[in-house]
């Protein structure tokens, strides 16, 4: 790996944290701001090492609030920017996430989840998956991805930037300590096979500065860059298409917030992805995400091989927007849905909401502070189905 250039196509042996920031570099990230926290610090250390060699800038801020705020300013000035934190720091960033949703600011936040509450512990968890969607104040949809491997840490971070730029919104990578500290093979494909998305600017749509509406023109408005003469005013108070905040009315409020909501929730098929295996003729299904899908698939294959249980496997690559329609389109009526999670049953709620008429019952398989073993999941499946 040469220090002064982006990764070349090839095979590497990397830590998840390193693969994450290599993906960011590949996506065009040139500003990183962060605050140290276990188990996310390796991402920022890698960024500190790599960015100044690539013409980018790294800064260690005084806290997580200012770190996330730096991304906002960098994004408005034209850069792709990211930070990484862990659960307690993620709580502090909620203020900026809400602000970035309302100002339609593309940026990427990686949450290397540790279990909580409070300082909790520095092991692994999936306890922020609800905070990712509902932690920020106000009615604001979010995009959140869930990586399960070093390869995912690379690819999902690139995808996070692409989604942020495409939909002009903050995107979360809900990693876990397990995937951030894991070391395994990373395959970088030929660079022309990696799609890179850049935000649409008013110049791209032939819009002159005197006709430019920072929150108008399209469902995803084109975003002007500071310094290019468009006199853009970024504002998070309820606003008209031109950013004007005077003449408040409930109509303006609804139009403003509903458009931001619809651009995500109305485009779930284009945004969200799920992965399926062994669904053909299955009578039960295991639905999981993140590193739990690594032990989850082993349990499913074992149950099929050992006892001939017709159980299928679904992995959510995207947690939010929740891929309800995709799940319903793919899943036939089943008997039992198993949901193993490294929390006490969080995504089990939207899964149940989406599929309550498609199953006899749902079984949550919680694990706090450590990853489920395949045996642990398997034992619960056998117990339920004997």
């Amino acid at each position, binding site marked *: 790996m040469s220090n*002064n250039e982006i990764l070349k196509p090839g095979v590497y042996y990397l830590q998840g944290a390193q693969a994450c920031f290599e993906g960011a570099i590949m996506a065009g990230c040139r500003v990183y701001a962060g605050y140290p926290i276990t188990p996310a610090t390796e991402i920022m250390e890698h960024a500190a090492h790599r960015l100044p060699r690539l013409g980018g800038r790294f800064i260690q801020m005084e806290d997580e609030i200012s770190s996330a705020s730096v991304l*906002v300013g960098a994004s408005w000035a034209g*850069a792709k*920017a990211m930070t990484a934190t862990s659960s307690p720091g993620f709580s502090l960033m909620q203020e900026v996430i809400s602000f970035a949703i309302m100002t339609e600011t593309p940026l990427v936040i990686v949450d290397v989840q540790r279990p909580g509450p409070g300082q909790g512990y520095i092991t692994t968890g999936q306890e922020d998956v609800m905070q990712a969607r509902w932690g920020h104040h106000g009615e604001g949809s979010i995009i959140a991805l869930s990586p399960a491997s070093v390869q995912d840490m690379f690819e999902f971070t690139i995808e996070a930037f692409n989604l942020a730029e495409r939909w002009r919104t903050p995107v979360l990578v809900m990693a876990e300590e397990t995937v951030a500290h894991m070391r395994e093979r990373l395959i970088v494909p030929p660079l022309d096979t990696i799609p890179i998305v850049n935000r649409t600017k008013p110049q791209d749509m032939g819009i002159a500065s005197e006709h430019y509406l920072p929150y108008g023109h399209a469902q995803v408005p084109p975003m002007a860059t500071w310094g290019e003469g468009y006199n853009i005013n*970024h504002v998070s108070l309820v606003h008209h298409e031109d*950013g*004007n905040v005077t003449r408040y009315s409930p109509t303006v409020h609804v139009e403003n917030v509903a458009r931001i909501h619809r651009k995500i929730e109305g485009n779930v098929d284009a945004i969200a992805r799920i992965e399926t295996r062994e669904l053909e003729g299955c009578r039960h299904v295991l639905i999981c995400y993140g590193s739990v899908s690594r032990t989850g698939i082993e349990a499913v294959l074992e149950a099929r091989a050992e006892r001939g249980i017709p159980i299928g496997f679904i992995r959510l690559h995207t947690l939010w927007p929740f891929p309800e329609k995709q799940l319903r389109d793919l899943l036939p009526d089943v008997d039992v849905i198993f949901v193993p999670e490294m929390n006490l049953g969080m995504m089990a709620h939207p899964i149940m909401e989406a599929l309550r008429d498609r199953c006899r019952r749902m079984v949550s398989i919680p694990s706090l502070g450590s990853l489920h073993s395949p045996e642990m999941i398997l034992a619960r499946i056998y117990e339920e189905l004997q």
Partner: protein
Amino acid sequence: MKKHPMLKYLKEEGPAGPRLPLIMCPGCGAGQVLNYALHAVDTLLQEDALRKEDFVFISGVGCSSRLASHYLNFDSGWTLHGRALSVATGALLANPRLRIVVLTGDGDAAAIGGNHFIHTCRRNMDMTILCMNNGLYGMTGGQVAPTTPIGKTTTTTPYGNVEDEFDLCRLAQTAGATYVARWTTAHPHQVIKSIIKGVRKKGTAFIEILSQCPVHLKTSPVEMFRNMKKITVPLKKSAAGPVEGKIPVGEFCDIKKPDWIERYQNIMDQLSE
């Protein structure tokens, strides 16, 4: 009717309706500070090799921060309460050529944004911070601020303020800002001169402007404005020691020191060799 010469820098009309007059209360000092800032920018555009699009105005939340809430015919951002300096830092990391003017207040900069204020000065980030200090929280109805004098009654200190006040200029200077000055709204020429100096200065320039809030202090704007000169004393006269009951105004420091971007650029240059 002849138009005010600075109106060319404001958005008077927009598709959603007129943006002027400002929402500020009658007699508020924020409008004066905006006028002074635009005069300074006008001079800089004439005298320096700067274009209008090089300037970005960034604010937080509060009365003074409303100045960057869609009135300005410049690139601008009306950001989070206390976080304007961090947003400005991000903009500089992405594009160090931008000339950033932060419009903030005493509550925004010294209370909720206090930590960011200290560290922005310490890093010597290249921006000009205009802090309008009215000694209270105006937008929420006149609560106590870190700059409220001891003993003062406000809506949240109904029996008098028991806390000492912050000296924001001393704080900025100690933390590492390269240009620090304090004036009042009654010092238009000095304020304009300081802003010009601040924008030209490489590094953090902090300019505190004592600004009247006639509404919450229940005093006539004219009386408050006249008082500005009475309650202040030139810094030189207070050099020997504080003058009882008077607030020193003037330039606290004007030094030369590399800013964050320059120091980081040196590393980037070494690494690319």
